[in-house]
C-alpha cells in the first residue's frame, strides 16, 4: 500500500521523519506535481491514534519546509504506483489550483458558543407571539454571528461557515495569510474582551486541510 501525505510546492528536502508504520518518506514527481508518500508492505487495516499523529506530524513538517502543501485525507491509500499516478494525473489541474489557493496561508478554526443558558422570556405568550419572539431571536443570532464572522473573513483569503451544532453561535474555518495571523489574533482578543458572555474556541494554525480539496465554490471569498 502507498500512503499519501500530501502534495507540496517548493519543498527542498524531505523531513527526517518516519511515516506511518515506520516507513521511510518518499517523494514522487507526477504530472509536474511533488507528492510525498510512504510504502507499507502490509495491508493497512485500521486507523490508530499513533497513525493519525504520524500523518499529521509529517504534514506539519512538510508545511514548514515548503511554500505550499495540500494535505491528503487519511484513510485513502493506493494499491500501486500506477493507481497513484493515475489519480494525481486525473486531478492535476485542480491540485495545482489548490496549491495556489493555500500558498502562504494557514488554517484557523473557530467555534463561538454562548456561555450559560438563556432566560426563557416566552412563557405565557400566545402561539403567534411565541413564533415572532423565536424568529426575532434567530434573526438577532444570525446578525450577531455575521458581525463576529465578517471581520475575520475579511482578514482571510477564504473562509467557510458551518451550520454548527446546536448552541454554536458561529462555527467557521479561515484560510489566513501568514502576514494576517497577528491581526486575526488581535481581533479575536478584542472579541473576547468585548463579549465575556461568549466562549471562543480557536484552534490552529493548522495545515490547510479544510481548503485542500477542490471545493472552492463552497468557500466565501474575501478581499
Amino acid at each position: 500500500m502507498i500512503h499519501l501525505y500530501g502534495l507540496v510546492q517548493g519543498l527542498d528536502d524531505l523531513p527526517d521523519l518516519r511515516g506511518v508504520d515506520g516507513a521511510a518518506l518518499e517523494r514522487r514527481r507526477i504530472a509536474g506535481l511533488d507528492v510525498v508518500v510512504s510504502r507499507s508492505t502490509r495491508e493497512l487495516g485500521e486507523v490508530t491514534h499513533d497513525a493519525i499523529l504520524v500523518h499529521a506530524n509529517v504534514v506539519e513538517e512538510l508545511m514548514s519546509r515548503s511554500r505550499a502543501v495540500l494535505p491528503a485525507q487519511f484513510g485513502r491509500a493506493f494499491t500501486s504506483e500506477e493507481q497513484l499516478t493515475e489519480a494525481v494525473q486525473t486531478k492535476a489541474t485542480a491540485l495545482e489550483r489548490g496549491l495556489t489557493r493555500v500558498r502562504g496561508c494557514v488554517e484557523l478554526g473557530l467555534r463561538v458558543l454562548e456561555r450559560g443558558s438563556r432566560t426563557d422570556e416566552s412563557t405565557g405568550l400566545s402561539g403567534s407571539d411565541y413564533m415572532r419572539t423565536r424568529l426575532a431571536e434567530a434573526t438577532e443570532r444570525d446578525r450577531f454571528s455575521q458581525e463576529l464572522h465578517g471581520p475575520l473573513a475579511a482578514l482571510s483569503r477564504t473562509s467557510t461557515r458551518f451550520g454548527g451544532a446546536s448552541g454554536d453561535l458561529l462555527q467557521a474555518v479561515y484560510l489566513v495569510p501568514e502576514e494576517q495571523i497577528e491581526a486575526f489574533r488581535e481581533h479575536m482578543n478584542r472579541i473576547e474582551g468585548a463579549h465575556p458572555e461568549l466562549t471562543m474556541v480557536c484552534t490552529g494554525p493548522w495545515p490547510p486541510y479544510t481548503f485542500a480539496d477542490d471545493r472552492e465554490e463552497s468557500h466565501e471569498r474575501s478581499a
Partner: protein
Amino acid sequence: MSPRDEHELKYQVTLVELVDRVLNKGVVLTGDITLSVANVDLVYVGLRLLLSSVATLEEQRDRELHPVGAQP
C-alpha cells in the same frame, strides 16, 4: 476549572480538531476509503467550559506533536 482540568480539556479539543481534519478533510484523490476507523476515541466534551486562544492552543499542539525531552 482547575489548571489540570483545563490542560486536559485543551488536549482533548486539540486532538479532536486534529483527528477531524486528518480523517474528514484534506485532498481526496481516490473514491474508495481503504482504511477503517478503529480505536479512535472521539471524546468531545466540555467545550462550553473552555476559554482559549490561538496562542495557548498552538502551544498545546506543539507540546503534543513535539514533546520536549520525550523518551522513545
